[in-house]
């Protein structure tokens, strides 16, 4: 399944009026991500959170950054899908210009991506931004 764009996700989520549907949508988005095979989940691509773990593999494809991500928790995987919609297959400049906080605010999910949450999402965002900065230089 092709991941919807970040704007499509904002529109989709605004459509639901109860939280269960919203979470179900996020879970389903996560399930649509290809994930990473067991052997690719190596320690060097592990981003550790104390509640859940996430893995990130990045590559530069003709000036666009592409990512494979995975998590051991399905809602975190869903939140990763939201992040992927914003960042995957984008140029470093597009990544750096994207306001992720604003995005999560529009999704009404900013509580889940605060630095205090130990789910590794904030760390993934920081890592992707770091890769984008390196690619620009």
């Amino acid at each position, binding site marked *: 399944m092709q991941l919807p764009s970040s704007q499509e996700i904002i529109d989709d989520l605004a459509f639901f009026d109860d939280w269960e549907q919203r979470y179900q949508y996020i879970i389903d988005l996560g399930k649509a991500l290809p994930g990473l095979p067991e052997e690719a989940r190596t320690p060097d691509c592990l981003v550790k959170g104390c*509640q859940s773990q996430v893995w990130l593999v990045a590559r530069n494809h003709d000036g666009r950054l592409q990512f494979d991500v995975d998590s051991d928790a399905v809602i975190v995987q869903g939140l990763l899908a939201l992040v992927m919609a914003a960042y995957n297959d984008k140029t470093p400049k597009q990544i750096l210009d994207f306001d992720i906080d604003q995005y999560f605010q529009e999704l009404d999910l900013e509580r889940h991506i605060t630095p205090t949450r130990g789910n590794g999402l904030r760390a993934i965002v920081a890592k992707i931004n770091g890769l984008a900065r390196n690619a620009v230089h």
Partner: protein
Amino acid sequence: MSLDVTALRQQFPILKTQIDGKPLVYLDNAATTQKPQAVIDALVEFYTTCNANVHRGSHYLSDEATRRYEKARTTVASFIHANAKEEVIWTSGTTESLNIIAHGLAQQLQPGDEVLITEMEHHANLVTWQQACIKTGAKLVVIPINEAGELEVARFEAALNTQTRLVAFPHVSNALGTINPINELTAMAKKVGALVSIDGAQGIAHGGVDVQAIGCDFYSFSGHKLFGPTGIGCLWGRQQVLEDWPVWQTGGEMIADVEYQNTTFGALPNRLEAGTPNIAGAIGMAAAIDWFAALDQHAIQTHEKALLARANELAADMPGMRLIGTAKHKVGIMSFLLDGTHPADIGFILDRQGIAIRTGDNCAQPLMKRLKIPGTARASFSIYNTIEEVEAFFNALKKAQTMLA
């Protein structure tokens, strides 16, 4: 007499909070307890009426602040049945208390010495001793637990020997809820002459701590797990041991005479309390103890047992629920896993229903590895929780199970 939980809850303003339009069900009490109005008032009253630095009495406010601050020490001392108030050292919490002990121990340990801990330690009661051992070449010996999460007492006893310098164990396990037989363990360790340090972070709120009856050398605890403020805690130590204990931080307050090349340190308790202390915190902690000690202890213990019993009953009916920690003697801590779901996901769905629990490694990574699990979800009950809240928690869990299936 049974506990009037409704009246008790009225004293906790935060319990009226709504999360996303749903009433807060606070089941993260092992992380920190909520504060009654009496504690909040004590903090406000201190800053409003008598804020000044202590032990520098050249004016009225300083005298009054010092009087209340030292009275707070007496309150703690009598709460835990200390022999003297000088045995109560204010710290920032259990972690700092344990660090004071470990720091001093590291100056005494030698290669060949042994420090005993258990498999159920919180990182605060593990990394501290581990680092002291690394520095000195002493050996850290870890006593196993059984499948229920109880300490293997016979193995503990067998591991004790004349090289054992210190034995450290929790009163109550934060991850498993297990209540350790602290009197028995202390008596065993004392037979070989080892120092005994008890991590009381989880034990203190369950009442009835009598350090003299236990017979240990150190008992450490935090105010914030006992309905008091954060950033304040205590190290209780036996006077004969603390008197010569290596000083921790140095600076003001802890000295007797200072010259450029030499300092004579002060007497207990000040010698282990450098700098301006957490005065408001100490007063707030004493207010929490006064508040807690005035409750009918039998009634709150009965209530806590009833909460755990109801939770166990509902857990038994919950398909796919695996309890982590099923000790015979345990407090109201329920760590668990649900088949096919990740604890973090359970946390998300419960949070969305207003239910606050802990998910993750419980600050006990080696224990999680020992149990071969990545972490747990953990609900921990306190005296202001109700049977209805326990039921709401299980209803929310069922919803999580359906959504995550």
